[in-house]
């Protein structure tokens, strides 16, 4: 058997004739010895999935956005009418603006508090491993299910936050005796999901709660690569904690921090679940994001063309992020 096997590297032209007479199984085996052939063959399952369920739907989405398709009809080509209609509509302006605020606020909160938590978790303490595992829980469990808990905590009548506020207020009255104009016995407290700005605050809070552990644990992985000697050197130079963070920790953690932040930006920007569970875009469209607007137009109202167009408005921003990321990774690669 060994004697019939050609040299390992590649099938050269004079052995092709010999291999042609081999049984099929062996011929395939030898064919796969070719590095390029094997390379392509191994890519087939992944590429098939990507072409059928990502590339094709994407181009279909572009086509749908140019039609007036509603559920159950083929739809007619209408050019850029859907995009023009969206750009003129108030609800779209609102959603675009909401997405900007939501993405920036949530990402900043997650990055800042995530870094703080990472620095805390980077210390040596009892139960350190257990604590690290525990704080990741919000990120592990299904977002809509933990979102339900938040919906219940934000309930108009039975909100636990309002119960605490009311309790604090009564404590204040019984201790200091200062009764102000409103009597909390009758006032329910803030409607967390019922007023536009508070509802935006609430969805940002829940998104940040859910995503913060991802930042913290990724940053922690970055922190653990910082050599302790650098801090010792800092100690000798008499730097304070903040200076050490700013001049030693931050520059070394920056590469991973940038990638994590960009990745989270994409996920936050395209978020759907938090809004769907908590507000469905309300009150008065004050919490609609691109994704929830697309869902409402495409799925709830059945205007598939318009919905596809609304979703595609995310693409330019995502495209920019992807290009930047590719550029950044390549520069990191070549820069070592």
């Amino acid at each position, binding site marked *: 058997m060994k004697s019939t*096997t050609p040299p*390992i590297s590649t099938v050269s032209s004079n052995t092709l004739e010999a291999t042609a007479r081999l049984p099929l199984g062996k011929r395939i085996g030898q064919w796969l*010895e070719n*590095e390029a052939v*094997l390379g*392509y063959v*191994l*890519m*087939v*399952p*992944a*590429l098939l*999935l*990507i072409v*059928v369920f*990502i590339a094709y739907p994407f181009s279909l*989405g572009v086509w*749908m956005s140019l039609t007036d398709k509603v559920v159950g009809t083929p739809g007619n080509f209408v050019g850029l009418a859907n995009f023009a209609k969206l750009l003129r509509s108030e609800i779209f302006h609102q959603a675009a603006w909401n997405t900007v605020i939501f993405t920036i606020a949530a990402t900043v909160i997650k990055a800042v508090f995530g870094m703080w*938590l990472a620095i*805390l*978790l980077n*210390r040596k303490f009892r139960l350190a491993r257990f*604590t*690290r595992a525990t*704080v990741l*829980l919000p990120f*592990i469990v299904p977002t*809509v*299910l*933990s979102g*339900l*808990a938040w919906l*219940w905590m934000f309930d108009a009548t*039975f909100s*636990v936050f309002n*119960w605490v506020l009311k309790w604090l207020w009564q404590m204040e009255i019984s201790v200091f005796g200062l009764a102000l104009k409103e009597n909390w016995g009758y006032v329910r407290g803030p409607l967390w999901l019922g007023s536009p700005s508070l509802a935006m605050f609430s969805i940002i809070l829940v998104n940040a*709660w859910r995503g913060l*552990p991802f930042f913290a*644990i*990724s940053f922690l*992985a970055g922190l653990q690569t*910082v050599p*302790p000697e650098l801090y010792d050197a800092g100690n000798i130079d008499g730097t304070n904690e903040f200076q050490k963070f700013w001049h030693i920790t931050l520059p070394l953690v920056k590469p*991973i921090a940038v990638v994590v932040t960009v990745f989270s930006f994409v*996920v936050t*920007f*395209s978020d759907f*679940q938090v809004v*769907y569970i908590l507000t469905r875009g309300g009150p008065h469209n004050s919490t609609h994001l*691109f994704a929830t607007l*697309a*869902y409402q137009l495409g799925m709830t109202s059945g205007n*598939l063309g318009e919905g*596809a167009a609304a*979703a595609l408005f995310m693409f330019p921003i*995502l495209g920019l*992020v*992807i290009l930047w*990321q*590719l550029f950044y990774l390549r520069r990191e690669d070549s820069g070592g």
Partner: protein
Amino acid sequence: MQAYVGETFFKRLIVFYIPLFLFVAVMLFPFYWMFITSIKPDFELYNVRRSPFIVSQATLEHWFYLFKETMFARWAWNTLWIATASTAISLFAGILAGYSLSRLRFPGSATFGISIFITYLVPPTLLFIPLASVIANLRLLDSPWALILTYPTILVPFSAWLLMGYFKTIPRELEECARIDGATRLQAMTKIILPLGMPGILSAGIFSFTLSWNEFLYALVFISSPQQKTIPVGVVSELMKGDVFFWGSLMAGALLGSIPVAFVYSFFVENYVSGMTGAVKG
């Protein structure tokens, strides 16, 4: 790790223990809230005069309701089957692609690598409307296969990307030795790289499983009949009907839907974390 020698206990309390305790409390409070709500009888649940933090007459009625009056057990089974099958498909495709891109040189491999990376950053919310019509044309609407086949589009780019990085850390010489001993390229892959890459594969698998268990949008759009739903969609759509929500059973469902992933995660924390951080680092 930074050493903090000579720090007084008081300073340690202020800069470390208290902030850390607050972080942990905020992260875990919603879970406590799910639990306490799920065991409260209704008269305690809907009474603003009582302290909501404690329960005086704990009950399992909401948990029983979940199994007797809803299809929760069926949803759990669906979720498990869909998550397992899509994880298996993703690992298969991801391992092959990851190996190919990290080990084999062929024209266009860089382009494939970039396209995998691009699809990694394409969110489901961008595609769900046209994808729904693709699924409808394949006659897969309302079938678990709609999800088993589409979840890998989220998971394969991630797994391939993660495994590419992982396979690169395995010394090339090991494979070359095997090939000098007469192993074919495929044998070198299955006998050398796969066993050595097991930690990476496990990370990709755990991560994929939790992602598919938690997926919501595709399951919401592609599945409509109650008996085909997954836990996240079932709990949200079947238990939140009308104006009155049954918060006790909703919270029981939310907790019960979270426990399996938390359980799997607790056994593989290290793998999960290395999967998570490895996937962003590439």
